[in-house]
């Protein structure tokens, strides 16, 4: 059983296998019967270092594929942006936490320094008061006479 007979096992009985190659009907080549313009481009030498690139023909995209592609790109972009924002937010929160901790520490230290300064000022004022003497000058202290009879108002 050759390959031609294999088709008959899978196809309906009415289906007949077609011959693989057709017989060439026109006896002459087309370029002999029809005048066509000749490609006048210069012939590339065989030793040209860059061989000509032949781009493969891309199949045309349908509407569904285009919409799907746009949607996927949009989702991917949105996801990426969302992730970027999330990462940025996380970084921001971490930075903020560090700043808050530093600020809190700085505030506590400032308050402690202020208290220490005020305590020092109070100590100085207290010492100043203790070192000062009540009466700086004593010139003459007049004796206080006792009550006399017939004294005047």
């Amino acid at each position, binding site marked *: 059983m050759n390959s031609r007979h294999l088709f008959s096992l899978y196809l309906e009985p009415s289906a007949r296998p077609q011959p693989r190659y057709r017989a060439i009907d026109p006896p002459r080549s087309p370029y002999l019967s029809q005048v066509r313009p000749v490609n006048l481009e210069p012939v590339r030498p065989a030793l040209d270092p860059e061989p000509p690139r032949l781009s493969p023909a891309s199949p045309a995209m349908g509407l569904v594929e285009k919409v799907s592609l746009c949607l996927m790109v949009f989702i991917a972009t949105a996801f990426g942006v969302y992730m970027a924002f999330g990462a940025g937010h996380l970084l921001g929160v971490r930075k903020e936490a560090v700043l808050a901790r530093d600020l809190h520490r700085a505030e506590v230290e400032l308050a402690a320094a202020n208290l220490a300064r005020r*305590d020092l000022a109070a100590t100085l004022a207290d010492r*100043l008061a203790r070192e000062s003497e009540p*009466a700086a000058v004593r010139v003459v202290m007049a004796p206080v*006479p006792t009550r006399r009879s*017939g004294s005047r108002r």
Partner: protein
Amino acid sequence: MLRSSQYKLLVAITLMMLGCFACLGYHLYDLQVRRHLVLCRIANDYTRARAQLEPWRGEVRDRHGVKLALSVPEKTVCLSLEVCGDDTEAVASTCAMLLRLPCERVRSAILFAQHHLRPGGKAPPQSIELKHHVSLEEWTAVASAVRLESFGYHLGKLAPKEESKLFKLRHHLLSATDSQARLYPFGETLATLLGYCSPADNGLGLEGNLGLEATYNSVLAGTFGDYISEKDAAGNELPLQRSVYHPATNGAHVQLTIDLPLQQMLESELAAAVTQSQARAGCAVIMDPSTFEILAMAGVPSFDPKKPMASQPQDLDNQCMTVLREPGSVAKMFTLAAALESKLVTLEKSVNCENGQCLVAGVRVRDHAPLGVLTVKEAFAKSSNIGFAKIGAALGPLRLYQCMTNFGLGQPSGIPFFGATRGRVIAPTNKSMTDLTRAAFGQGIKTTQLQLAIAVSVIVNEGRLFRPLLVRQIESPDGKILRKFEPQFVRQVVSPATAQQLREAFKAVVASGGTATAAASPQYSCGVKTGTAQKADTNGYIVGAYYSSVIGFMPAEAPRLVIAVALDEPRNGYYAGTVVAPWFRAIAEQSAALLGIPPDKAVAARAARARFEVRPTPSIHAASTSTPRL
């Protein structure tokens, strides 16, 4: 087609799921609607930090910038009951040793808090206050010492749990909250003027209760701040999460016109005067008559501003501004001023002072001695009641009343002060002839010593009344002057000519034959008026109780100071000329020396200059600013 069993199963599952959703819905309703407020409050308690920021109370300073009252930081040590746990004995003994408290007291406080103290009938408090008024230095020492304590654990062999417990005890058992206390570095000096502070009713900050602390409380106290923020698990506030933040504004500083060295001298002399004369109380004022600034104001008895409650209530009074007394013969200056201003008399006009007693307008008036016919000036110098009762009767009630009120009697002195009184002068419509006769020599009217000092300042200042000053300026905490008080002219009370005649009359009192020869100084000339008033109560005048005062100015020709000294119920003599005048002289001489006023008596000037020796008090003057001294 579903079979019956499958259908039943499907229905059962559906019902079960519906039931679950119903439970979930009810739970949501319970959380979000029914208990919403309560849960919000609990959540806020966990996450929200809300506190009031206490402002720092301002300082009170003298005219040279020396601090008379200031706030000092202090701590209140708290003990965490949660950390303490069951280690009551070890914790109590350690804390008692560190804080120098009785061990039994600490132990009973912890046990009481653990087992009996239930605020709101719920769980015991998290911490209790162990000791108040702990200085920063002491707290630092306690905080570092507690980290070395063993709390009864054997440090060599500790299980992990015990290590953790010991760490907690060392680091979280004791904590401290900040507060402020008022410090008066000079103790009782100026206590009756400054007043005192006590913790405010809401437990935050200090509140002035008396004197200038109460009068200027709104200025000194500052403004409370507040914040609403979030806190972390350890309870630390997160400053960047503050939704509301109003910083506290510290209180302003009040600078007085008081000169501290002068004040100290005055208080020292007044205390000596009260002790020596065995008086019940005493007061004295020194004023600058050119600016009406009060340079010193003393009162005896005084009190300790740290322990005001330990004093008698009457000791808290400011004797110069809040205590009213009959002025006695000092009030004759008002009668003389009214009579001179209305041209009723001149200083040389004669007046018959009779023979010691006389009936004037139906009132029996007595003199301390038969004086006979005198000039008005002599009658003033010898303080004749009869002479001035006659002048008052001739003057009429309206003119005497107008003169007294023009001098400021019966009116607010113009100094804002907690408890200041305006005195009492009987209006002419209500004044009978008896009242008028008695008012002419100082009975039936009531004044403060400050009002009398202001009146003498008017006489010295060419008859012009200025608003007296006790506060010089108010400064913001950063040193910016918020308000500066300048002498403010009020009115012309008497003409300059009348004021000049009154000064002559004052000088005659110190001269030979006057009542205050003891006030005369060999170095400085002066003019004074004495007053010995019998004290009165609801039943009339009290026998043997007198209020003796001397008010005057010095030097006589170009007065720089007005000095008023008064003793309440002196026992070692009571006439002002003998009991108070010597102290007036001592105060005048020392004031002049302190303020650098040169002696003006030519005879004694040279000798006095040789004896003069001003010994400055460097510690105080070092702090003084460039303010020129008088």
